[in-house]
């Protein structure tokens, strides 16, 4: 069964004239890792919010078409129903923090309390999420005394503790150092392998090429492409949409190297390495 089905989704923010989303239609399978890319204002964040219902329930505005997640119609369901299926990690962790909790541990409990999780079930879920994101040593720290990178890890852990079937992340590693970002991508990939559906808006194109099963390219509220990273990043018209292919694909394109089996440019470090080593002009 399809985990997410979006049909003709249109959305306009209040007090604006132009549609932010102009009729998107696509389907996502359970356990897929989907990367959403596009230049700023292309609709990435709006789409993330439409998948978990902040669009339209919180922002209001004009809405058309439908979004179904796991048998629930987002536009008509209550936000508390949607929240049991879909978790959203905000772009800016500072705006996600509840502000009502004094420690990191309690902040992770906030979502679980609202879901009505039994007290004895909370602690193991919180411990697991803290361990996954490497923030166990900050458990007693006030959330607002964390650095940007630590707060971002906490924001992700808060949503993972809720064990949503679908997790939507909006640039989740922007404040992390390179290895920290890599750790988070690996943790999220592991969740996806275990069946969690992952949707991530991201500018880190090399990471998207490496980790996502399919890439959804947005431009001015419209879907330009929804295909494998190899297909999307081998397009000749990416520049028009303000997107550059991964560095590894740029090298291969510059050297005229395509994957002999597919005719597409290599996208990842491993793939590019194999092809470049064997290259003879």
């Amino acid at each position, binding site marked *: 069964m399809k985990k997410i089905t979006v049909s003709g989704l249109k959305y306009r923010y209040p007090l604006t004239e132009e549609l932010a989303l102009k009729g998107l239609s696509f389907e996502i399978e359970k356990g897929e890792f989907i990367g959403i890319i596009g230049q*700023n204002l292309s609709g990435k964040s709006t789409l993330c919010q439409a998948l978990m219902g902040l669009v339209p329930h919180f922002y209001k505005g004009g809405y058309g078409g439908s979004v179904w997640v796991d048998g629930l119609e987002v536009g008509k369901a209550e936000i508390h129903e949607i929240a049991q299926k879909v978790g959203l990690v905000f*772009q800016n962790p500072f705006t996600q923090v509840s502000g009502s909790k004094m420690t990191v541990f309690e902040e992770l409990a906030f979502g679980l309390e609202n879901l009505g999780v039994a007290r004895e079930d909370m602690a193991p879920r919180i411990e697991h999420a803290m361990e996954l994101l490497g923030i166990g040593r900050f458990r007693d720290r006030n959330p607002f005394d964390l*650095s940007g*990178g630590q707060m971002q890890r906490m924001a992700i852990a808060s949503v993972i503790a809720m064990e949503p079937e679908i997790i939507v992340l909006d640039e989740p590693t922007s404040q992390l150092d*390179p290895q*920290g970002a890599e750790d988070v991508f690996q943790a999220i990939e592991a969740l996806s392998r275990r069946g969690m559906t992952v949707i991530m808006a991201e*500018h880190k194109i090399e990471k998207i090429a490496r980790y996502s099963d399919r890439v959804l390219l947005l431009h001015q509220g419209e879907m330009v492409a929804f295909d494998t990273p190899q297909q999307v990043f081998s397009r000749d018209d990416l520049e028009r949409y303000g997107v550059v292919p991964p*560095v590894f694909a740029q*090298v291969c394109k*510059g050297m005229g190297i395509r994957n002999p089996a597919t005719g597409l440019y290599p996208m990842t470090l491993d793939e590019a390495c194999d092809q470049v080593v064997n290259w003879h002009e």
Partner: protein
Amino acid sequence: MNKIEIRKLRFHYSAGEEILSDISLDFDARSTAIIGQNGAGKTTFVKLLKGLLQPVSGDVLIDGINTRDMTVAGLARHVGLVFQNPNDQIFKNKVLDEVMFGPSNIGQSPDEARASALAALQMVGLADKQAENPYDLSLSERKLISIASIVAMHTDIIIFDEPTIAQDHAGKERIKAIIRELAKQGKLVLTIIHDMDFVAETFERTLVFAEGKVLLDGPTREVYGLPGILKQSHLEPPHITQLYNRIGCQGAVLTVEEFIAARRAGTGRPPVSA
């Protein structure tokens, strides 16, 4: 002349938990990136340069002036800081007013402040947006406003905190061009940043902070040629350098063009360039 001199700088928030330990270094006019693991002390270091914090021991000299001898307001004439998130910096409801606020506060006359603000907006490419409300503009544009607000203050030193966060490709290219222009004008541009590819393409000098110390300091190419030490510091070389190293070449290439040129030349060495 050195624009900043740091002498045996030590700092902690609470005794026994040293954040910066015994840092001594100089900054000339070369554009410089500060990279390092989360929690390495980068932001604390920058706050010491702005006088927002005072050293526990040691000295920070800005344009020859000890930060102990000058107020934060006085230092603001010498050092400008562009916030990571423009929404935390911008508070006026008209772009021109926002950009005039800084220069007006450090003693420029209304006419001077206006001229400075217009020139700064011109430089970041927002001259036609001066009458708009910053919050009617995009995040990328607000980032540029936050930069213009500091540029208009004509400080000799400009610090950026994570300038590429939430920026798309076009936004990053614009910021890169602005940093290069400021460096060309002889200003010291210092940047805290996690985007290794952007550092490779933009900054002459790179410092690696780790556990309150400066672990590496040198031309960006040299620093990125030491993958072992970068890994210890939770960093990694730029993607292009990673590929270069993976195919068995030592050292660093910093751009796709350099990589291709090196492969075409059939050498393991990067081409010599400035």
